[in-house]
Protein backbone atom coordinates (compact mmCIF):
# COMPACT_ATOMS: atom_id res chain seq x y z
CA UNK A 1 0.00 0.00 0.00
CA UNK A 2 1.46 3.38 -0.86
CA UNK A 3 1.21 5.58 2.21
CA UNK A 4 -0.54 8.95 2.01
CA UNK A 5 2.69 10.68 0.96
CA UNK A 6 3.39 8.13 -1.75
CA UNK A 7 -0.12 8.62 -3.10
CA UNK A 8 0.39 12.38 -3.27
CA UNK A 9 3.68 11.85 -5.10
CA UNK A 10 1.89 9.66 -7.67
CA UNK A 11 -0.78 12.33 -8.09
CA UNK A 12 1.90 14.98 -8.51
CA UNK A 13 3.75 12.99 -11.15
CA UNK A 14 0.60 12.28 -13.18
CA UNK A 15 -0.39 15.93 -12.81
CA UNK A 16 2.97 17.05 -14.21
CA UNK A 17 2.20 15.57 -17.62
CA UNK A 18 -1.50 16.52 -17.70
CA UNK A 19 -2.75 19.00 -15.14
CA UNK A 20 -6.40 18.12 -15.89
CA UNK A 21 -5.87 14.43 -15.11
CA UNK A 22 -5.97 14.11 -11.34
CA UNK A 23 -9.13 15.33 -9.64
CA UNK A 24 -8.17 14.30 -6.13
CA UNK A 25 -6.75 11.68 -3.82
CA UNK A 26 -8.40 9.74 -1.03
CA UNK A 27 -6.47 7.89 1.61
CA UNK A 28 -8.95 6.13 3.84
CA UNK A 29 -8.33 3.16 6.13
CA UNK A 30 -4.98 2.42 4.48
CA UNK A 31 -6.51 2.29 1.04
CA UNK A 32 -5.10 4.64 -1.55
CA UNK A 33 -7.50 5.93 -4.18
CA UNK A 34 -6.61 8.17 -7.08
CA UNK A 35 -9.50 10.13 -8.60
CA UNK A 36 -8.80 10.86 -12.24
CA UNK A 37 -10.82 12.33 -15.09
CA UNK A 38 -12.23 9.75 -17.54
CA UNK A 39 -9.96 10.84 -20.39
CA UNK A 40 -6.83 10.34 -18.29
CA UNK A 41 -7.58 6.76 -17.20
CA UNK A 42 -5.35 4.89 -19.73
CA UNK A 43 -2.40 7.23 -19.12
CA UNK A 44 -2.76 6.98 -15.34
CA UNK A 45 -2.94 3.19 -15.47
CA UNK A 46 0.10 3.04 -17.74
CA UNK A 47 1.99 5.30 -15.33
CA UNK A 48 1.14 3.04 -12.40
CA UNK A 49 2.11 -0.02 -14.45
CA UNK A 50 5.55 1.55 -14.79
CA UNK A 51 5.64 1.96 -11.02
CA UNK A 52 5.21 -1.79 -10.51
CA UNK A 53 1.42 -2.13 -10.37
CA UNK A 54 1.36 -4.68 -13.17
CA UNK A 55 -1.76 -6.61 -12.27
CA UNK A 56 -5.24 -5.26 -12.96
CA UNK A 57 -7.20 -7.16 -10.35
CA UNK A 58 -10.64 -5.79 -11.08
CA UNK A 59 -12.62 -3.31 -13.13
CA UNK A 60 -16.02 -2.58 -11.75
CA UNK A 61 -18.78 -0.05 -11.86
CA UNK A 62 -20.61 1.78 -9.09
CA UNK A 63 -23.80 3.84 -9.17
CA UNK A 64 -23.58 6.73 -6.69
CA UNK A 65 -27.23 7.80 -7.11
CA UNK A 66 -28.30 10.50 -6.21
CA UNK A 67 -24.80 12.03 -6.25
CA UNK A 68 -23.57 13.57 -9.46
CA UNK A 69 -21.76 12.44 -11.53
CA UNK A 70 -23.59 9.25 -10.83
CA UNK A 71 -21.56 6.46 -12.35
CA UNK A 72 -18.12 5.43 -11.22
CA UNK A 73 -15.62 3.04 -12.76
CA UNK A 74 -13.00 1.62 -10.43
CA UNK A 75 -9.73 -0.04 -11.42
CA UNK A 76 -8.01 -2.08 -8.72
CA UNK A 77 -4.29 -2.43 -9.32
CA UNK A 78 -1.92 -4.79 -7.56
CA UNK A 79 1.85 -4.79 -7.29
CA UNK A 80 2.59 -8.47 -6.97
CA UNK A 81 6.19 -8.03 -5.79
CA UNK A 82 5.44 -5.83 -2.79
CA UNK A 83 1.75 -6.83 -2.48
CA UNK A 84 0.72 -3.22 -2.82
CA UNK A 85 -2.73 -2.17 -3.94
CA UNK A 86 -3.99 1.10 -5.38
CA UNK A 87 -7.41 2.09 -6.70
CA UNK A 88 -7.97 4.35 -9.68
CA UNK A 89 -11.41 5.83 -9.77
CA UNK A 90 -13.23 7.87 -12.38
CA UNK A 91 -16.72 9.34 -12.43
CA UNK A 92 -19.01 9.93 -15.41
CA UNK A 93 -22.51 11.36 -15.90
CA UNK A 94 -25.32 9.09 -17.03
CA UNK A 95 -25.99 11.46 -19.97
CA UNK A 96 -22.56 10.81 -21.49
CA UNK A 97 -21.03 7.79 -19.77
CA UNK A 98 -17.92 7.58 -21.89
CA UNK A 99 -14.61 6.20 -20.64
CA UNK A 100 -11.64 5.20 -22.83
CA UNK A 101 -11.09 1.47 -22.85
CA UNK A 102 -7.89 0.05 -21.40
CA UNK A 103 -8.29 -3.32 -23.10
CA UNK A 104 -5.30 -2.71 -25.38
CA UNK A 105 -3.00 -2.21 -22.40
CA UNK A 106 -4.67 -4.74 -20.08
CA UNK A 107 -6.30 -7.66 -21.94
CA UNK A 108 -8.06 -8.74 -18.77
CA UNK A 109 -10.19 -5.59 -18.92
CA UNK A 110 -12.00 -6.89 -22.00
CA UNK A 111 -14.67 -8.95 -20.26
CA UNK A 112 -14.78 -6.76 -17.17
CA UNK A 113 -15.49 -3.65 -19.20
CA UNK A 114 -18.18 -5.55 -21.03
CA UNK A 115 -19.73 -6.40 -17.69
CA UNK A 116 -19.64 -2.77 -16.55
CA UNK A 117 -21.26 -1.83 -19.85
CA UNK A 118 -23.87 -4.56 -19.40
CA UNK A 119 -24.82 -3.62 -15.86
CA UNK A 120 -24.26 0.17 -15.75
CA UNK A 121 -24.26 1.30 -19.36
CA UNK A 122 -20.80 2.85 -19.29
CA UNK A 123 -19.57 3.13 -22.84
CA UNK A 124 -15.92 2.25 -23.30
CA UNK A 125 -14.51 3.82 -26.45
CA UNK A 126 -12.07 1.77 -28.55
CA UNK A 127 -13.21 -1.44 -26.91
CA UNK A 128 -12.75 -4.24 -29.49
CA UNK A 129 -16.09 -5.96 -28.79
CA UNK A 130 -18.41 -3.96 -26.57
CA UNK A 131 -21.50 -6.19 -26.23
CA UNK A 132 -23.60 -7.39 -23.34
CA UNK A 133 -21.91 -10.28 -21.56
CA UNK A 134 -24.40 -11.47 -18.91
CA UNK A 135 -27.84 -10.30 -19.96
CA UNK A 136 -29.45 -11.34 -23.26
CA UNK A 137 -28.41 -9.28 -26.28
CA UNK A 138 -31.89 -7.80 -26.71
CA UNK A 139 -32.24 -6.74 -23.07
CA UNK A 140 -33.22 -3.12 -22.55
CA UNK A 141 -31.81 -1.00 -19.76
CA UNK A 142 -28.92 -1.43 -17.38
CA UNK A 143 -30.12 -3.46 -14.42
CA UNK A 144 -27.51 -2.53 -11.80
CA UNK A 145 -28.30 1.18 -11.96
CA UNK A 146 -30.01 2.33 -8.80
CA UNK A 147 -33.03 3.77 -10.63
CA UNK A 148 -33.66 0.50 -12.48
CA UNK A 149 -36.66 -1.39 -11.08
CA UNK A 150 -35.72 -4.50 -9.16
CA UNK A 151 -38.08 -6.50 -11.36
CA UNK A 152 -39.39 -9.90 -10.50
CA UNK A 153 -42.76 -11.44 -11.11
CA UNK A 154 -45.85 -11.85 -8.94
CA UNK A 155 -45.92 -15.47 -7.90
CA UNK A 156 -49.08 -17.46 -8.53
CA UNK A 157 -49.68 -20.02 -5.84
CA UNK A 158 -52.45 -22.58 -6.02
CA UNK A 159 -54.61 -20.72 -3.51
CA UNK A 160 -54.23 -17.34 -5.18
CA UNK A 161 -54.61 -18.49 -8.76
CA UNK A 162 -57.83 -16.94 -10.08
CA UNK A 163 -58.22 -18.12 -13.63
CA UNK A 164 -56.27 -21.35 -13.43
CA UNK A 165 -57.12 -24.57 -15.19
CA UNK A 166 -58.12 -26.16 -11.88
CA UNK A 167 -56.63 -29.53 -12.72
CA UNK A 168 -55.68 -30.17 -9.07
CA UNK A 169 -59.31 -30.31 -7.91
Amino acid at each position, binding site marked *: MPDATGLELFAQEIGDTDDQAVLGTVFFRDRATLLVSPKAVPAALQFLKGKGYTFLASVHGVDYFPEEPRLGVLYELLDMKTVDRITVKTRVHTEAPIVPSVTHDWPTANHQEREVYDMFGVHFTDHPDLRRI*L*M*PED*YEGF*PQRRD*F*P*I*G*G*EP*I*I*FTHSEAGG*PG*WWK
Partner: protein
Amino acid sequence: MEIVRAGDKGAQDLARTEFRSAQMKSRDMLRGDLEGAELEAYVESRVLTTTLDKAVAWARGNAIFPATFGLACCAIEMMSIVAARVDLARFGFEAFRASPRQADLLILSGRISIKMAPVVRRIYDQMLEPKYVIAMGACSSSMGVFNNYAIVPADKFMPVDVHVPGCPPRPEALTHGILKLRNLILENPDLGWRDRYDGHGTVEVAPEGTTASAHAENVPGTEGGASA
Protein backbone atom coordinates in the same frame (compact mmCIF):
# COMPACT_ATOMS: atom_id res chain seq x y z
CA MET B 1 -25.56 -73.76 12.91
CA GLU B 2 -29.33 -73.81 13.07
CA ILE B 3 -31.22 -70.66 12.12
CA VAL B 4 -34.30 -70.10 14.28
CA ARG B 5 -36.87 -67.67 12.90
CA ALA B 6 -39.02 -65.68 15.23
CA GLY B 7 -42.76 -65.45 14.61
CA ASP B 8 -45.92 -67.48 14.69
CA LYS B 9 -45.07 -71.16 14.32
CA GLY B 10 -48.60 -72.08 13.23
CA ALA B 11 -48.74 -69.47 10.47
CA GLN B 12 -45.38 -70.62 9.17
CA ASP B 13 -46.53 -74.19 8.99
CA LEU B 14 -49.71 -73.13 7.16
CA ALA B 15 -47.72 -71.11 4.64
CA ARG B 16 -45.40 -74.04 4.10
CA THR B 17 -48.32 -76.39 3.49
CA GLU B 18 -49.93 -73.96 1.02
CA PHE B 19 -46.68 -73.54 -0.83
CA ARG B 20 -46.28 -77.30 -1.02
CA SER B 21 -49.79 -77.84 -2.37
CA ALA B 22 -49.30 -75.08 -4.96
CA GLN B 23 -46.11 -76.78 -6.08
CA MET B 24 -47.97 -80.07 -6.49
CA LYS B 25 -50.72 -78.33 -8.50
CA SER B 26 -48.13 -76.83 -10.83
CA ARG B 27 -46.60 -80.25 -11.38
CA ASP B 28 -50.01 -81.73 -12.14
CA MET B 29 -50.79 -78.92 -14.59
CA LEU B 30 -47.52 -79.48 -16.44
CA ARG B 31 -48.28 -83.16 -16.68
CA GLY B 32 -51.77 -82.35 -17.99
CA ASP B 33 -53.51 -83.96 -15.02
CA LEU B 34 -55.50 -80.87 -14.02
CA GLU B 35 -58.98 -80.64 -15.52
CA GLY B 36 -62.29 -78.79 -15.19
CA ALA B 37 -62.87 -76.59 -12.12
CA GLU B 38 -59.42 -77.36 -10.76
CA LEU B 39 -57.78 -76.12 -13.94
CA GLU B 40 -59.97 -72.97 -13.87
CA ALA B 41 -58.96 -72.24 -10.30
CA TYR B 42 -55.31 -72.80 -11.17
CA VAL B 43 -55.42 -70.38 -14.11
CA GLU B 44 -57.28 -67.78 -12.06
CA SER B 45 -54.61 -67.89 -9.37
CA ARG B 46 -51.82 -67.54 -11.90
CA VAL B 47 -53.03 -64.91 -14.36
CA LEU B 48 -53.34 -61.21 -13.63
CA THR B 49 -55.64 -59.18 -15.84
CA THR B 50 -55.36 -55.45 -16.29
CA THR B 51 -55.91 -52.80 -18.91
CA LEU B 52 -53.23 -51.87 -21.38
CA ASP B 53 -53.23 -48.28 -20.12
CA LYS B 54 -52.52 -49.41 -16.60
CA ALA B 55 -49.79 -51.79 -17.67
CA VAL B 56 -48.14 -49.08 -19.74
CA ALA B 57 -48.45 -46.60 -16.87
CA TRP B 58 -46.91 -49.15 -14.53
CA ALA B 59 -43.95 -49.56 -16.84
CA ARG B 60 -43.59 -45.81 -17.38
CA GLY B 61 -43.96 -44.88 -13.73
CA ASN B 62 -41.37 -47.30 -12.47
CA ALA B 63 -38.55 -46.51 -14.87
CA ILE B 64 -38.31 -42.76 -15.32
CA PHE B 65 -35.05 -41.64 -16.91
CA PRO B 66 -34.17 -38.10 -15.81
CA ALA B 67 -32.13 -35.87 -18.09
CA THR B 68 -28.60 -35.05 -16.99
CA PHE B 69 -29.27 -31.37 -16.58
CA GLY B 70 -28.17 -29.19 -13.67
CA LEU B 71 -28.84 -25.49 -13.38
CA ALA B 72 -27.48 -24.32 -10.04
CA CYS B 73 -26.84 -25.33 -6.45
CA CYS B 74 -29.91 -27.61 -6.39
CA ALA B 75 -28.08 -29.77 -8.93
CA ILE B 76 -25.66 -30.82 -6.21
CA GLU B 77 -28.58 -32.18 -4.20
CA MET B 78 -29.97 -33.74 -7.36
CA MET B 79 -26.69 -35.58 -7.97
CA SER B 80 -26.75 -37.00 -4.47
CA ILE B 81 -30.10 -38.74 -4.92
CA VAL B 82 -28.42 -41.38 -7.04
CA ALA B 83 -25.61 -41.84 -4.54
CA ALA B 84 -25.45 -44.44 -1.81
CA ARG B 85 -27.39 -42.65 0.92
CA VAL B 86 -30.69 -41.95 -0.82
CA ASP B 87 -30.10 -44.34 -3.72
CA LEU B 88 -32.88 -43.60 -6.16
CA ALA B 89 -32.07 -46.85 -7.96
CA ARG B 90 -34.36 -48.52 -5.43
CA PHE B 91 -37.27 -47.04 -7.40
CA GLY B 92 -35.77 -47.34 -10.87
CA PHE B 93 -35.01 -43.68 -11.62
CA GLU B 94 -31.24 -43.82 -11.45
CA ALA B 95 -30.44 -43.83 -15.16
CA PHE B 96 -29.62 -40.19 -15.87
CA ARG B 97 -29.56 -39.87 -19.64
CA ALA B 98 -27.18 -37.45 -21.30
CA SER B 99 -29.51 -36.81 -24.23
CA PRO B 100 -32.97 -35.24 -23.99
CA ARG B 101 -34.13 -37.71 -26.65
CA GLN B 102 -33.67 -40.56 -24.19
CA ALA B 103 -34.99 -38.79 -21.11
CA ASP B 104 -38.52 -38.81 -19.68
CA LEU B 105 -38.03 -36.38 -16.84
CA LEU B 106 -36.51 -32.91 -16.72
CA ILE B 107 -35.50 -31.80 -13.23
CA LEU B 108 -35.17 -28.02 -13.15
CA SER B 109 -32.55 -27.93 -10.44
CA GLY B 110 -31.99 -24.26 -9.74
CA ARG B 111 -32.65 -20.74 -10.91
CA ILE B 112 -33.50 -20.13 -14.56
CA SER B 113 -32.31 -16.80 -15.90
CA ILE B 114 -34.15 -15.14 -18.75
CA LYS B 115 -31.14 -15.96 -20.92
CA MET B 116 -31.32 -19.65 -19.97
CA ALA B 117 -35.11 -20.00 -20.34
CA PRO B 118 -35.11 -20.49 -24.14
CA VAL B 119 -32.42 -23.17 -23.73
CA VAL B 120 -34.44 -25.02 -21.10
CA ARG B 121 -37.55 -24.78 -23.24
CA ARG B 122 -35.64 -26.14 -26.21
CA ILE B 123 -34.40 -29.12 -24.20
CA TYR B 124 -37.96 -29.74 -23.05
CA ASP B 125 -39.21 -29.61 -26.64
CA GLN B 126 -36.53 -32.06 -27.71
CA MET B 127 -37.69 -34.64 -25.19
CA LEU B 128 -40.06 -37.32 -26.47
CA GLU B 129 -43.55 -37.90 -25.11
CA PRO B 130 -44.30 -38.95 -22.45
CA LYS B 131 -42.29 -36.26 -20.66
CA TYR B 132 -42.52 -34.87 -17.18
CA VAL B 133 -41.00 -31.90 -15.39
CA ILE B 134 -40.09 -31.38 -11.76
CA ALA B 135 -39.36 -27.81 -10.64
CA MET B 136 -36.86 -28.31 -7.84
CA GLY B 137 -36.25 -25.64 -5.23
CA ALA B 138 -37.67 -22.21 -4.59
CA CYS B 139 -36.00 -20.50 -7.55
CA SER B 140 -37.58 -22.46 -10.36
CA SER B 141 -41.02 -22.38 -8.69
CA SER B 142 -41.38 -18.95 -7.10
CA MET B 143 -37.90 -17.49 -7.74
CA GLY B 144 -37.13 -17.45 -4.02
CA VAL B 145 -34.58 -14.84 -3.02
CA PHE B 146 -33.76 -14.14 -6.66
CA ASN B 147 -37.10 -12.53 -7.47
CA ASN B 148 -35.50 -9.85 -9.64
CA TYR B 149 -34.90 -8.68 -13.19
CA ALA B 150 -32.84 -11.68 -14.29
CA ILE B 151 -34.81 -14.74 -13.19
CA VAL B 152 -38.00 -16.27 -14.54
CA PRO B 153 -40.13 -18.99 -12.90
CA ALA B 154 -40.49 -22.24 -14.82
CA ASP B 155 -44.28 -22.02 -14.94
CA LYS B 156 -44.07 -19.03 -17.25
CA PHE B 157 -42.64 -20.92 -20.17
CA MET B 158 -43.26 -24.64 -19.69
CA PRO B 159 -45.67 -27.01 -17.93
CA VAL B 160 -44.47 -28.31 -14.58
CA ASP B 161 -45.87 -31.47 -13.01
CA VAL B 162 -44.36 -31.38 -9.53
CA HIS B 163 -42.94 -28.50 -7.50
CA VAL B 164 -40.47 -29.48 -4.79
CA PRO B 165 -40.07 -26.67 -2.22
CA GLY B 166 -36.86 -25.97 -0.34
CA CYS B 167 -33.71 -23.93 -0.71
CA PRO B 168 -32.28 -26.28 -1.69
CA PRO B 169 -34.57 -29.25 -1.06
CA ARG B 170 -33.00 -32.16 0.75
CA PRO B 171 -32.35 -35.20 -1.44
CA GLU B 172 -35.14 -36.93 0.48
CA ALA B 173 -37.53 -34.14 -0.54
CA LEU B 174 -36.63 -34.56 -4.20
CA THR B 175 -37.10 -38.31 -3.86
CA HIS B 176 -40.51 -37.62 -2.36
CA GLY B 177 -41.29 -35.39 -5.34
CA ILE B 178 -40.24 -38.08 -7.79
CA LEU B 179 -42.38 -40.65 -5.99
CA LYS B 180 -45.30 -38.19 -6.15
CA LEU B 181 -44.69 -37.99 -9.87
CA ARG B 182 -44.71 -41.78 -10.02
CA ASN B 183 -48.07 -41.82 -8.25
CA LEU B 184 -49.35 -39.27 -10.74
CA ILE B 185 -48.29 -41.47 -13.62
CA LEU B 186 -49.66 -44.66 -12.07
CA GLU B 187 -53.02 -43.22 -11.09
CA ASN B 188 -53.55 -41.16 -14.20
CA PRO B 189 -52.18 -43.00 -17.20
CA ASP B 190 -53.65 -40.32 -19.44
CA LEU B 191 -50.75 -38.03 -20.24
CA GLY B 192 -53.07 -35.13 -20.85
CA TRP B 193 -50.84 -32.33 -19.61
CA ARG B 194 -51.90 -30.21 -22.56
CA ASP B 195 -55.47 -30.48 -21.26
CA ARG B 196 -54.42 -29.88 -17.65
CA TYR B 197 -52.53 -26.74 -18.55
CA ASP B 198 -54.71 -25.70 -21.46
CA GLY B 199 -51.49 -25.92 -23.43
CA HIS B 200 -52.63 -26.68 -26.97
CA GLY B 201 -50.63 -25.06 -29.72
CA THR B 202 -47.60 -24.46 -27.54
CA VAL B 203 -45.27 -26.80 -29.39
CA GLU B 204 -42.17 -25.28 -30.91
CA VAL B 205 -42.81 -24.75 -34.57
CA ALA B 206 -39.90 -24.65 -36.96
CA PRO B 207 -39.70 -21.81 -39.50
CA GLU B 208 -41.80 -22.01 -42.66
CA GLY B 209 -40.65 -24.39 -45.36
CA THR B 210 -38.87 -26.89 -43.14
CA THR B 211 -40.10 -30.41 -42.64
CA ALA B 212 -40.24 -30.06 -38.86
CA SER B 213 -43.29 -27.77 -39.01
CA ALA B 214 -45.48 -30.55 -40.41
CA HIS B 215 -44.42 -32.79 -37.56
CA ALA B 216 -45.08 -30.13 -34.93
CA GLU B 217 -48.66 -29.63 -36.10
CA ASN B 218 -49.39 -33.32 -35.69
CA VAL B 219 -48.30 -33.56 -32.08
CA PRO B 220 -51.40 -32.33 -30.20
CA GLY B 221 -53.78 -34.53 -32.23
CA THR B 222 -51.86 -37.78 -31.91
CA GLU B 223 -51.27 -37.23 -28.23
CA GLY B 224 -54.96 -36.78 -27.46
CA GLY B 225 -55.90 -39.87 -29.49
CA ALA B 226 -53.36 -42.17 -27.89
CA SER B 227 -54.33 -41.38 -24.35
CA ALA B 228 -58.12 -41.47 -24.71
